[in-house]
Each structure stands twice: as structure tokens, then as C-alpha cells.
């Protein structure tokens, strides 16, 4: 891992003196690498007209040939959404979203049914190749099954047969609606109800696709599962929905990656992720989020308003969230765990990096309901440029959470004197026989450490990268191997130019 972030920088930073370390003028001299996933794929897509009303929802449902219960679910959610107000408590200060100016369904045109990957539009495959996502099944070395979602629709899922041998279902949610309707009807909306919040209600009304995973009893998923989300059109919102069910004594590791092209308009991404873990099951959900963050003046970028929640229903079940958040103009995301089952475990490991004018308000909620439940929160925030990076988390011990424990650690690192780092932990306990510990600190890059590294001949920016990587190590250790390397690279890339 150490080698992966040794990068060649075009700056002349090694000539700098320590005193000038965070000098504004020098910052501008440092060459910036542009957002490399910012290209648009020229592909024929099928879009419906802009706007949102009951007819649009019926149309989406019809296009996807959905059963009635799902249409009802959508319509109910839409009615609830209409009555709700857009939340403003995080004070993120973005310009008002015109919900009638968004296309709610956009899909690459393709043949009715794809029997093998050869039938997928080669341009699409090329896009995913550019993104470094191996869709072709020949690339078995990576041993990761991928579900690729392009705009609103899942275009390909790899390694299906091998997974099917183990009884694992991994497909797009639209396919699951057709082939595993009973599971969808039983679990959809049970973790994040349609009326949960404004964006969850919107998603429930218009979600177009996403991934579905079902791990049967006693099965350890033979490979990591991965979904890759790509927004391609500038005027369509992305509303995917992910549902993962881990039956008794099963386990799965799921990876999620996101990129989008550069547009000077803001695109809305409002996803819902629901995880359900039964007795002794374990789900590990990792995200590397690198949506387009807008340019230096804050023009464009994705509004990332996501509801992610896991329910530890069974005894000794475990849900672990790990995330690396580097993209999006605004991130608003609190992956949470409802710890219902006795001795269930919730974990949250997060690195959030903001630069330029990005705003991130992210954290977690650990709701301890069952006895002897445990949760761990490790959050690392790095703010550079003029960005705002906030940790907002809730730890709640319910009256029945006897013998439960929580440990939270939130560290922030500030780079430059224009960025802001905030910590808002909400801690509530109603159970005397439980323990909550929370600690938070804020620091800057240590001059002593920097001097030490430089005196050993390590270049300035490389030293910064190493220190940032060290700062995030607790979280990177939790990421699957491929993601850890990617995350490291991503951070180095994002930070380029912010330290002078």
C-alpha cells in the first residue's frame, strides 16, 4: 500500500521552506490534475420528459413491467413526498432544486434482454473499461462480481453463474422484481420506510434500478460483490436502490463505486441502500464515492443525498460500513445501523475529504435497541481549500440495550486556513448499564513530522500524502484490498494543489 501513493508531482515544492507551507500563492502554482472521470459517453439513451407527477411514476413502473404492489409503494411514497418539506437543518446552503426540471428515467437503449455481455453496447463496455471497471468475465483475476448501473439502469452483472452455484442472487433490482418478487415484497422499504425522509421518499417514488443481493443460509459469498454507478446525462437524476439480504450465518462483502461526467449544472443523486442481516450473518458494505465535485468556483457537481441504513435483525449479526467520500459538490449521508438483535455489531469507518467549495455533512447513526450490542465509529475528515467538512453522528442507547457499548472517534485534519471542520456528535442514553465513549480531535499536518520526512529526502507533497494516508490508516485497513489502494490514490489526487 505504501507504494501506491508514490506519485510524480510537477510542483517545485521541495524547494519550499517550512514557513511557506500553507502559502496561498504557492497553492495556485501547483499543477492540478483534472477530474479524470469527467468524460461523457456518446450513447443513444432512452429518456422520458422532464418533470414529476403520478403519470411519470406510472410510466416508470410500466416501463419496468412492475407488479401492482410496487406501483402502490411508489405512489404512496410520492404522496408522502408531496407533503414533506425539503430538510435544511444541516445548513448546507445549496441553491434550490427544481424537481420538475429533472429527468426521472434515462437508460441506454439496448436490446430487450441481454443473454451475454457480448450483446452490451461496446461503447458502454468501453466506458466501464475507461473507469477501470472490468466487466468482461475474462478478467477473472480480479475475482469481483460487478453490477454496472449506467444512469438509471443496470446494464450488466458479471459472474452470475458462478454465484448461482452457491445460491447467491446478485442482479439488478428490476430483475429481482421479476424473478424474486417475494423477497422484494417482503423486504423492500422495511429498513428505510418510504416516509423516512424527504429524499428517501423521492427515491421510493421514482427509483429506477440498483442492485439486489441475497445470500442464502450458511453461505459465505465466494467473491466480493461490486456495483458501479455512473451518471452520464447531465439533466437526469440518479435514484438507485440497493437491497442486500444476508440470511442466517451467511456473509458478504459488497463494494460500491461512483463516478459522473463534468457538467456545469448540478445533478441530483438520491439513493437508498437497505441492508438486512439475520442471525450470525455479516455484511460489509464499502463505498468509494468519487462523483464529480464541481470546479474550483463551485460550478456544477453532484448533490449526493443518500439514505443508507442497515438492520441487524438477528442475534450476533454484524453490519460494517466503510466509506471513502471524496467527490460530490454536496454530500449528505449517514450510513446507519439499527442494532436489534442480541449481541449484534455495527461498525462505521469513514474518510471524508473535501476540497475547493465542497461541502460534506456525513456521519452515522448507531441505534442500540437490543441487549449487549456493540458499535464502533471511526471517522476521519480532511478539509482543504474553502470546503466545509462536518461529522454528524448519533449514538443512542435504548432502554433495553443492557450491556451495550459504543466507541466513537472523530478526527479532523485542516489543510489551509479557509477550510472548516465541524464535529456534531449527538449522544443519548437511556440505559445505565451501557457505556458510551466519544472522542474527537482537530489538528493540522504536523510540521515536525513533515520536517522529519523531508530531511529523509522525501519530497514535500509525497510527505503530505504519506501523512494523510497515515491519518486515515484506521479506515483504510477496513477497506477491501482493491479499494484501499484506490482510496489512497484518490486522496493523493484530490489533495494535489491544496497544499503549497
Amino acid at each position, binding site marked *: 500500500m505504501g507504494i501506491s501513493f508514490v506519485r510524480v508531482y510537477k510542483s517545485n515544492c521541495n524547494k519550499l521552506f517550512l514557513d511557506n507551507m*500553507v502559502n496561498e500563492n504557492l497553492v495556485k502554482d501547483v499543477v492540478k490534475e483534472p477530474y479524470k472521470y469527467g468524460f461523457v459517453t456518446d450513447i443513444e439513451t432512452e429518456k422520458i420528459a422532464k418533470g414529476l407527477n403520478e403519470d411519470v411514476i406510472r410510466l416508470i413502473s410500466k416501463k419496468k413491467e412492475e407488479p401492482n404492489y410496487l406501483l402502490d409503494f411508489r405512489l404512496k411514497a410520492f404522496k408522502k413526498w408531496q407533503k414533506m418539506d425539503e430538510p435544511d437543518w444541516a445548513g448546507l446552503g445549496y441553491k434550490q432544486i427544481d424537481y420538475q426540471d429533472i429527468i426521472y428515467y434515462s437508460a441506454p437503449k439496448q436490446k430487450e434482454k441481454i443473454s451475454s455481455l457480448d450483446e452490451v453496447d461496446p461503447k458502454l463496455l468501453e466506458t466501464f473499461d475507461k473507469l477501470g471497471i472490468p466487466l468482461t468475465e475474462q478478467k477473472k483475476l480480479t475475482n469481483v462480481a460487478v453490477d454496472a448501473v449506467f444512469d438509471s439502469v443496470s446494464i450488466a452483472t458479471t459472474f452470475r453463474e458462478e454465484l448461482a452455484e452457491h445460491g447467491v442472487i446478485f442482479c439488478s433490482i428490476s430483475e429481482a422484481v421479476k424473478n424474486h418478487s417475494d423477497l422484494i415484497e417482503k423486504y423492500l422499504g422495511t429498513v428505510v420506510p418510504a416516509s423516512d425522509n424527504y429524499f428517501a421518499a423521492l427515491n421510493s417514488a421514482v427509483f429506477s434500478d440498483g442492485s439486489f443481493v441475497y445470500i442464502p443460509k450458511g453461505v459465505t459469498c465466494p467473491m466480493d460483490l461490486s456495483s458501479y454507478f455512473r451518471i452520464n446525462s447531465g439533466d437526469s437524476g440518479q435514484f438507485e436502490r440497493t437491497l442486500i439480504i444476508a440470511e442466517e450465518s451467511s456473509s458478504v462483502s459488497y463494494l460500491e463505486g461512483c463516478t459522473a461526467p463534468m457538467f456545469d449544472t448540478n445533478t441530483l443523486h438520491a439513493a437508498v441502500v437497505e441492508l438486512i442481516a439475520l442471525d450470525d450473518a455479516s455484511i460489509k458494505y464499502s463505498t468509494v464515492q468519487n462523483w464529480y465535485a464541481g470546479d474550483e468556483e463551485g460550478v456544477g457537481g453532484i448533490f449526493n443525498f443518500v439514505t443508507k441504513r442497515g438492520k441487524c435483525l438477528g442475534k450476533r449479526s454484524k453490519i460494517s460500513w466503510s466509506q471513502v467520500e471524496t467527490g460530490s459538490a454536496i454530500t449528505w449521508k449517514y450510513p446507519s445501523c439499527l442494532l436489534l438483535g442480541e449481541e449484534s455489531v455495527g461498525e462505521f469507518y469513514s474518510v471524508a475529504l473535501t476540497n475547493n467549495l465542497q461541502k460534506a455533512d456525513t456521519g452515522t447513526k448507531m441505534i442500540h435497541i437490543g441487549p449487549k450490542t456493540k458499535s464502533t465509529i471511526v471517522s476521519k475528515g480532511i478539509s482543504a481549500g474553502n470546503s466545509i467538512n462536518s461529522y454528524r453522528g448519533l449514538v443512542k*442507547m435504548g*432502554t433495553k440495550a443492557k450491556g451495550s457499548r459504543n466507541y466513537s472517534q472523530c478526527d*479532523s485534519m*485542516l*489543510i*489551509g*486556513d*479557509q*477550510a*472548516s*471542520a*465541524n*464535529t*456534531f*456528535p*449527538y*449522544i*443519548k*442514553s*437511556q*440505559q*445505565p*448499564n*451501557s*457505556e*458510551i*465513549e*466519544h*472522542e*474527537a*480531535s*482537530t*489538528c*493540522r499536518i504536523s510540521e515536525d513530522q513533515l520536517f522529519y520526512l523531508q530531511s529523509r529526502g522525501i519530497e514535500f507533497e509525497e510527505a503530505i500524502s504519506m501523512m494523510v494516508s497515515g491519518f486515515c490508516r484506521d479506515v483504510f485497513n477496513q477497506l477491501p484490498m482493491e479499494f484501499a489502494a484506490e482510496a489512497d490514490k484518490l486522496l493523493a489526487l484530490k489533495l494535489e494543489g491544496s497544499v503549497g
Partner: protein
Amino acid sequence: MEIIEKIKTNKLVEKQTDIQKICLDKLQSSPLPNPKSELWRLSNKIKFSNFLDYSVNEKNLKFDIPYPNNSQKTIRLIIGQNCQIQLIEENYSIQQISEDELDKYIKEQISCFNETENWSDLLNLSLSCKKNILGLRINGSKIPPIEIFSHASSNSLNAKTLVIFLEKNCDIELLQVNLGKDNSSLSQSTFFFLEEHSSLNHGVVSYGKNGSNLLNSLNVIQQKNSEYSLGSLHFKFNYARFEINIKQSEGNAKTNIKGMQITKKDEQISTYTKINFDGPNGFLDQINKSLADDKSHAIFEGSIIVPKIAQKTDASQLSRNLLLSDLAQIDTKPQLEIIADDVKCKHGATISQLNEEELFYMRTRGITLAEASKLQLSSYFQEIISFIPVSKERWDLLDKILNEN
């Protein structure tokens, strides 16, 4: 909600002063605090409305102070009962601030008020009549410790205001005692202005009785090289709020806070602190302890704000909480808002019960469970109580808390 009705119709106080008029006007636009704001979200609405149910009482009340007789070594003042204060000694002086000056200062403060954050102050200043506003200017050194009492009377709402200017190089110990009576509400607002190189060792003891309520707001402005220490204790209130607002106006100042709140029965006591660093090299060390028993609810919210100008700030905040009953609740929210990059800021929070291993150890030595718990609690309390000035030798606060039912 009698008070609110009166505010709405503006019939609250006869012969209103300018200050009362300004505050009543502001309150008319927000007669009740915004329940959606973080500062009031957790407040028990029924209890709070109970606070406002009493009528304002401005009469001169004789009050028997349940604390030791005044010793000659301390200066004792009772807000509302001191007509003229002028103490000029060889090395110090304590004088009442002139009405005009006091008026001007309070108006200045009001102009910076935010209706959500300073709602308690607005209420206080709209109710506090001239007689109940005590303004003092203190200078010199080797000043004897000062005790200042505010008290409520039964079945009424009392508002008391204290303004103190500490002049350059002045160094004092001051204990403020807020006393509640049966079924009473007390609104206490305090304003301190610490000039350069001054030092204030401040203690706040708020001690209620059955069904007493308290809104206690403390505003401190610290100029550079000043030092402010606060030791506070709040207990036995049906409903109490302690709002601390400290501003280091030029940085380079030191603030130490050690506070404690104890809730029993169905009481709710909350502490809200906001520390603003408006200059570089500020220092803060804060610890807040809560203990919640029976069906009570203890709340702590502390925010530390470090803008860009406040480089080299060193701030730490710790919230420690003991939850002793299945039906009690604790909410705590220490928060950091930081823009300056060269700072050391940290906070921590814990919620737990008494340490079982320590209890077990003591029991194996033949100490009963009740005694062992008491011993552990006394060590938990002692850290804060020993920090409260003046009270140390003369008032057995620890005994009062431990043996209080």
C-alpha cells in the same frame, strides 16, 4: 403561559424602562423560544411552560438564607436589597455603576442578541426592574471574596440581573448563589466584562427546592490576558437551564470551566455552553459532569467556535455522565466548529454507570454497597466542588448533595 400572554399584550410591567421596552418588543416577535432550534429542542415543554406560569414579583422580600452567617472576611450582597454600594479601601474599590452607564452597556449587549440564543436574557431584561439590576465596577487587588445572592420567592417569577466590570489587573473571587423556593421561577442573567490582565475566579451554586425553576444565563467577555475560571453546581430544580456564553474578544485569554448538574426524581437540568474565540492564542479547558437518577433528564450541549482569526487556539472539552437509573436519560452533544488550521482542539464524552470493579473492591473490604457508591460519587463530585471558590471551607456542598433526597 401567563407571562407569554402578558408579553403579547405588552401589559407585563408597569412603568417600563427603556431596556424593558426594547426587550419586550423583541420578545413580542418571538414570545416563545423556537422549539426546533438545537438549543431548545430537548427542553421539556411542560416544565418550561410551568416556568412561565407564575406572576412577576417585584416586592421586597425578606429571605432567610440557609447558609452560614456572613463572616467578616467576605462581602455579601443580595440582589434587590442593596441600595447603594460604595466600598473604597486602600487597595481596592467596589462601586455601583451609574444608571446611565449601566443602561448604555446593557443596550449595547441587547443589540448583539440573537433571539434564539439569547431568549433567556431577553426575558430576564424585560422583567428585571431597576431595583433588581445590580451593576458593579471593581478594581484593585487583595479584595475579600464576594458572595452575591439571587433568590426567588414562592409562587412567583423573579428576575435578577448582575453586571460586573472588572478593571485592569483586578483579581477577585466571587461566588454567586441562586436559590429557588417552593414553586418558584428564577430568571438570572449575569454579564461580566473582564478587562486586560484581570482575573475572575467565579463560582455558581444554584440550589432549588421542591418545584423550583431556574433560567440562568451567564455572559462573559474576556479581553486579552484575562483569566476566567468557573466552577458551577446546579441541583434540585424541577427545571433548570444554565446557558454559558463566553467570548474571548481578542484571544490570548484563558478560560477554565468545571460544571456539574445533578438530577433526581423527574427533574430536568441542562447546560448549554458556547465559547467563541475571536482572537489567536486562546485557551479553554472545560469539563462538564452530569448525574441522572430516578426518572430525570440531564442535558449538556457545548460548542467551541474557532474562526480563521483564532490561530493557535488550544481548547478541550470533556463531558462525563453517570446514568444511575433505568428510567433516567442523558443527552450530550459536545461540538467543534473550526476554521483556523493551526489549532489544538479536542472533545470527549462518556456515559456510564458507577465502576463495578471499584465497587466490588470496596465491598470485599467490608464496605456496604451504599457506602461504596457514596464514596465513588463523592470522588466524582469532588473534582468540581473543590473548584468552586469561597464555598470550600464554609459550606459543605458535598455533604449536601450526597445526603439530599
